[in-house]
């Protein structure tokens, strides 16, 4: 068999060697040769309805599996539409490879039809990007892209491929190795630092574990559990880290931060040792920095050296891969256990009593009403059906916070949301990626009525792929989180937040060929959700909830995290524009 083939075919060979079984994309003029080669290739291509959603779907696939998600777009508008998805993956450290077509090499820079400077535009929203200038470079670049995306701190990598590179013919010789001399990976962790960290952990009277998305990226949930158990310390998981420690674990306290629980935030404030694992001290977690954990020493483990000291200077940094470092930490803790574990046992008991006291004082409990569906009630019901086992995707906003507060996740990679970037319209397309990756899992896509309308075109993708996603709309008729801020901080002057026109969910779903329903009575909620779950195909459930519920607890922007607003009187609309 001759190994003479086109660049497009060569690209498919490389994707095959990287184990890519599915990609999400949208064809166009300059990617025609690639799609033509795909015609006779086993790789599965999912045609989305907007390129942004191709990237979100790839991200959902990656978040659900840990494998690299792949998306594809044409030059110009196709590539620029990917940008939001790339930044989202960048912020949440998600391994995505984006392939974009570019105009023919000799037209680059000539303002050709559908030309955009994709390489320049995406430089700052990717971990790394490439412009392929000759077919000879293509195979190595593709393997480099997958390697860079999936190793170290994962992230998106974009490869921009001119049309003539797709069309050029060349002899394909599989690349046996790649060389990135400047790509430094530090994974093992410094053994002296690890030993000192173990010592600090036993010396602490009020240790507190703060685990984040890095644990999930590292696949180190089991190792985290061992650390939590040997130390018997309370543990919080950030929004990105939910599921890294099972929500049902007795040491799990909940999520800290702006809409975190009282106990989590009080714990963070009063601890004398923060054990920060795969986190980046996000402003939504820390609140006002000079009031954040004022009495605490900090141990910070991260694979990315640039995260160390970015926000809070740690007393003990460890740069390394949690999967490799945590077992060493556990071992060091075990070695020191006989001599050190007893010295603070009285303090530890008192600390647990205090944390449990905070939990009892202001527990995170859903609110119910007999006349209206409260949003918390909706999340509570989804949680009951999920039992900590379903994949749940979300956008950003009130529904995201309520979902994070009330839905349990017993495993990593179940909670999929746009954490760092906070992109609306993320939930539905990321559910497509997650359901493609995990065809046998129950997948809930939860959106607000705002975010859902940003992603509506993907109903077609869901229908055409026959994906049994349970699409739940938490419909309060408002851009709820923006309205919440207008109420609380802008004198209730509601400007451009009312979503007063929403399609009939049943008709909308039916027009795509699947079932849908709108409910607004609490008595119907359980049965409606059950009907959605029982349906073998997709289901669109529009849940009309109380319009003016706000997310609490809440740390006002710029506030200290122990200065939470725990609840507010039901506000009244005084004006809308």
């Amino acid at each position: 068999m001759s190994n003479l083939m086109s660049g497009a075919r060569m690209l498919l060979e490389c994707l095959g060697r990287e184990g890519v079984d599915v990609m999400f994309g949208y064809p166009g003029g300059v990617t025609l040769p690639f799609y033509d080669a795909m015609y006779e290739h086993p790789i599965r291509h999912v045609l989305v309805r907007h390129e942004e959603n191709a990237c979100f779907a790839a991200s959902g696939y990656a978040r659900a599996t840990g494998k690299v998600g792949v998306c594809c777009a044409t030059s110009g508008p196709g590539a620029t539409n990917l940008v939001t998805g790339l930044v989202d993956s960048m912020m949440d450290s998600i391994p995505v490879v984006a392939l974009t077509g570019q105009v023919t090499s000799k037209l680059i820079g000539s303002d050709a039809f559908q030309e955009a400077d994709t390489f320049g535009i995406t430089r700052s929203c990717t971990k790394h990007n490439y412009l392929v200038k000759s077919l000879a470079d293509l195979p190595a670049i593709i393997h480099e892209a997958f390697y860079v995306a999936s190793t170290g701190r994962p992230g998106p990598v974009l490869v921009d491929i001119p049309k003539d590179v797709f069309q050029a013919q060349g002899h394909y010789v599989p690349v046996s190795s790649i060389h990135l001399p400047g790509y430094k990976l530090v994974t093992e962790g410094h053994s002296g630092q690890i030993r000192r960290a173990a010592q600090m952990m036993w010396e602490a009277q009020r240790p507190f574990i703060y685990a984040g998305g890095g644990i999930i990226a590292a696949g180190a949930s089991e190792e985290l559990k061992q650390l939590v158990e040997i130390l018997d310390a309370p543990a919080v998981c950030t929004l990105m880290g939910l599921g890294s420690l099972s929500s049902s674990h007795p040491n799990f306290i909940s999520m800290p931060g702006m809409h975190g629980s009282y106990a989590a935030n009080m714990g963070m404030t009063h601890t004398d040792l923060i054990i920060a694992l795969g986190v980046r001290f996000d402003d939504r977690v820390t609140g006002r920095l000079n009031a954040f954990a004022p009495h605490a020493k900090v141990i910070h483990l991260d694979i990315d050296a640039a995260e160390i000291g970015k926000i809070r200077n740690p007393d003990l940094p460890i740069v390394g891969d949690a999967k490799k470092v945590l077992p060493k930490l556990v071992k060091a803790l075990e070695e020191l256990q006989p001599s050190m574990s007893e010295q603070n046992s009285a303090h530890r008991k008192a600390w647990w009593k205090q944390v449990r006291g905070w939990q009892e004082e202001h527990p995170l409990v859903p609110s119910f009403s007999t006349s209206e569906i409260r949003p918390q009630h909706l999340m509570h019901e989804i949680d009951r059906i999920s039992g900590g086992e379903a994949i749940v995707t979300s956008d950003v906003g009130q529904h995201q916070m309520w979902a994070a507060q009330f839905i349990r996740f017993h495993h990593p990679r179940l909670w999929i949301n746009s954490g760092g970037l906070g992109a609306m319209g993320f939930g539905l397309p990321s559910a497509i990626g997650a359901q493609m990756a995990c065809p046998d899992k129950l997948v809930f896509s939860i959106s607000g009525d705002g975010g859902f309308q940003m992603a509506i075109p993907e109903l077609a993708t869901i229908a055409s792929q026959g994906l049994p996603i349970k699409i739940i709309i938490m419909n309060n008729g408002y851009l709820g989180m923006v309205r919440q801020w207008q109420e609380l901080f802008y004198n209730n002057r509601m400007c451009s937040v009312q979503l007063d026109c929403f399609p009939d969910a049943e008709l909308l779903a039916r027009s795509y060929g699947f079932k849908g329903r709108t409910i607004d009575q609490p008595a119907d909620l359980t049965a409606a959700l059950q009907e959605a779950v029982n349906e073998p195909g997709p289901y669109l459930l529009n849940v009309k909830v109380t319009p003016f519920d706000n997310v609490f607890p809440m740390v006002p922007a710029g506030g200290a995290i122990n200065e939470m607003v725990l609840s507010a009187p039901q506000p009244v609309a005084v004006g809308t524009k």
Partner: protein
Amino acid sequence: MIQVISVLLENKPGALMRVTGLLTARGYNIECLTVARTLDPTLSRMTIGVDVEPHLRRQVIKQMNKLINVLQAVDLTDGPSVTREMVLLRVRAAMEHRTAILKEAEIFSARVVDSSTEGFAIEATGDTEKMDEFIDVMRSYGEIEVTRSGVVAVSLEAKKLRLSPPIPTGAEAKSKDRIGVLNA
């Protein structure tokens, strides 16, 4: 006060933008920038002069070291280093000042590279402060036109350069721990 960052990077399109982009994205102005090939033609050495507070500078240098194209980024501000800048200037000189200008140039170890009835073109090298003084002195003689190279610098400490070895690709690589950290 300008701080100096020295960056060893791959000589590839876009590499320069990645490095400078980290500063511009944070709203910092680059005061001066030099870049040229090293002995190894696949690499470039870049010297950046910036005015950034120490905490942020440390952060930015870490970010630079993270870039795939960057082999090493070092802050030369605190450690021992030598910095030099080159100035090329043209000074219009009236006849009565010509001798004085040549004397001044000599004091600064500057070299006349062109002489005409209009005046001189002079080349000088030295650290930034010295070059500032030189320019001030020359300005006192008449109209001048100045081009500065920006600083180049060399650290007086040997920094160990850690480079990653080649990595196998494809299915055979996957069986090892290449992406084993990712639940693959």
